[in-house]
């Protein structure tokens, strides 16, 4: 396990992936091919996606928390609370907060697993990890958190390590989602569960339209005004639309081996929480 806690200058995996991206076909999108994938609405070479996504998150890292509150009217905090409530976390648990970014979920988990437990905040992007580490330290959360720079597709942990893995608003940025799901499955303990919190497909057409308008007209402008980075927020909006819908993601989880897979729509399906177990 390569902790960057002591070594903040750890390799930047976001520009040099640990292993070559392989050519597994993905179930979620017909436009995916052997060598290309989506970057928002653009079709790009798979090898380029990692560095392009990295570019987005290096550029938004500092303003990430402020923008999150602004863009979602603060509701992302409630979605995350719902995730914690559904996690069944208890003292002593080992939790992996994957694509954990600035560490909102990690902060809560750290308080709930206690001294006997452990939370690993893993992210591919060093800027996001640094912002996260500073924030959690400021909150006095130090004793049971470890920071690991890692790609979700190649998790650097032993099999059967974690009781809970969460990936919140992260899966849609991953190049090979099926591979990431299999990698997560392997590091979960038998009986452990995965929670995927991600934008999804609104249940009602009207809401869908309103949401589209918001994402493509308002969101990038807000990004431009507040974070001086309209392009990154345009990417975020596009990547949300390209992400598999509720049923597709559920099927992908089942393909990766997860059982008792369910999802719950939040805020009319703007966001969904998928849950699956490894037995």
């Amino acid at each position: 396990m390569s902790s960057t806690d002591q070594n903040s200058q750890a390799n930047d995996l976001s520009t040099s992936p640990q292993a070559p991206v392989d050519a597994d076909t993905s179930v979620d999108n017909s436009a995916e091919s052997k060598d290309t994938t989506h970057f928002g609405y653009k079709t790009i070479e798979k090898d380029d996606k990692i560095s392009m996504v990295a570019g987005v998150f290096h550029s938004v890292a500092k303003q990430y928390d402020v923008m999150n509150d602004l863009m979602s009217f603060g509701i992302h905090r409630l979605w995350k609370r719902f995730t914690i409530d559904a996690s069944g976390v208890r003292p002593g648990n080992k939790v992996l907060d994957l694509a954990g970014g600035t560490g909102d979920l990690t902060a809560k988990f750290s308080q709930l697993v206690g001294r006997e437990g452990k939370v690993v905040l893993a992210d591919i992007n060093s800027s996001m990890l640094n912002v996260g580490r500073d924030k959690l330290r400021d909150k006095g959360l130090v004793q049971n958190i470890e920071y690991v720079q890692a790609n979700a597709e190649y998790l650097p942990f032993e099999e059967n390590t974690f009781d809970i893995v969460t990936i919140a608003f992260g899966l849609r940025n991953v190049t090979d989602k099926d591979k990431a799901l299999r990698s997560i499955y392997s590091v979960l303990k038998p009986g452990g569960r995965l929670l995927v919190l991600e934008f999804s497909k609104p249940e009602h057409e009207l809401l869908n339209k309103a949401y589209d308008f918001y994402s493509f007209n308002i969101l990038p402008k807000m990004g431009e005004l507040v974070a001086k980075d309209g392009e990154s927020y345009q990417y975020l909006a596009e990547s949300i639309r390209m992400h598999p819908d509720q049923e597709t993601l559920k099927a992908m989880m089942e393909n990766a081996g997860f059982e008792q897979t369910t999802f719950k729509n939040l805020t009319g399906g703007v966001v969904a929480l998928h849950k699956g177990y490894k037995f």
Partner: protein
Amino acid sequence: MQTSNNQALTQLNTQASTQVSDSLLLPQVATATIELIINKALALNNNKLVSFSAINQKTLTLKLAELSFPLSFTVNSTASATGIIVRTHVESSDCTINTSIKTLKKLKAKQSLTLLIKQDELDVNGDIKLAQQFANIAQSLAIDWQSELARHLGDVPTHKLLHFGNKITKSVSAAGKKIEADIGEYLVHEKRLVVTTSQIASFNQQTKDIASQVDSLSERIDKLFSDIAEK
């Protein structure tokens, strides 16, 4: 038959309102607000309080008659600070209390826990000592919930959502209650315990009515979201 219709309807109705409140995350609005209030009070009172170390990482769950979801309180005490995390629907709790807000008020007025248990106003499962320790903390914090809740719910950006959510939940349950009452009426007026064809027809009609009410509710939810999105 009628009773079971009634039960089925009540169940449907509770399910519908739980679904609406879940989708709007009302339990999470509540736990976030309560957590904020408690931790503010804790920060102000920290020095006066009993030691938390004995109940560190322990969870107490409150099931209140007035609330459709449970509230769980977990203590997290470190060298630097003590906080309480509030959640709903936890899977393991060291102590669970079934009671009502009315009874909790008595507890605040320094009536003893054991007395309330004896009077059947409070039902405790699990570690009763933990319940006592939480009760002591609650008493020493002396939070004025009514004014605190009003103040904070005015602040949070989710205030609107909560407000509309409550309205929607209420109208779903009002629709359900009306049907229950109507079915009750048939029983009284027609003095018949068997279900007649006309009752079945009318039950079917009412089921259709409630379906269309649910449709119009979901339209209102759509509108609510588009309103919010436009703002």
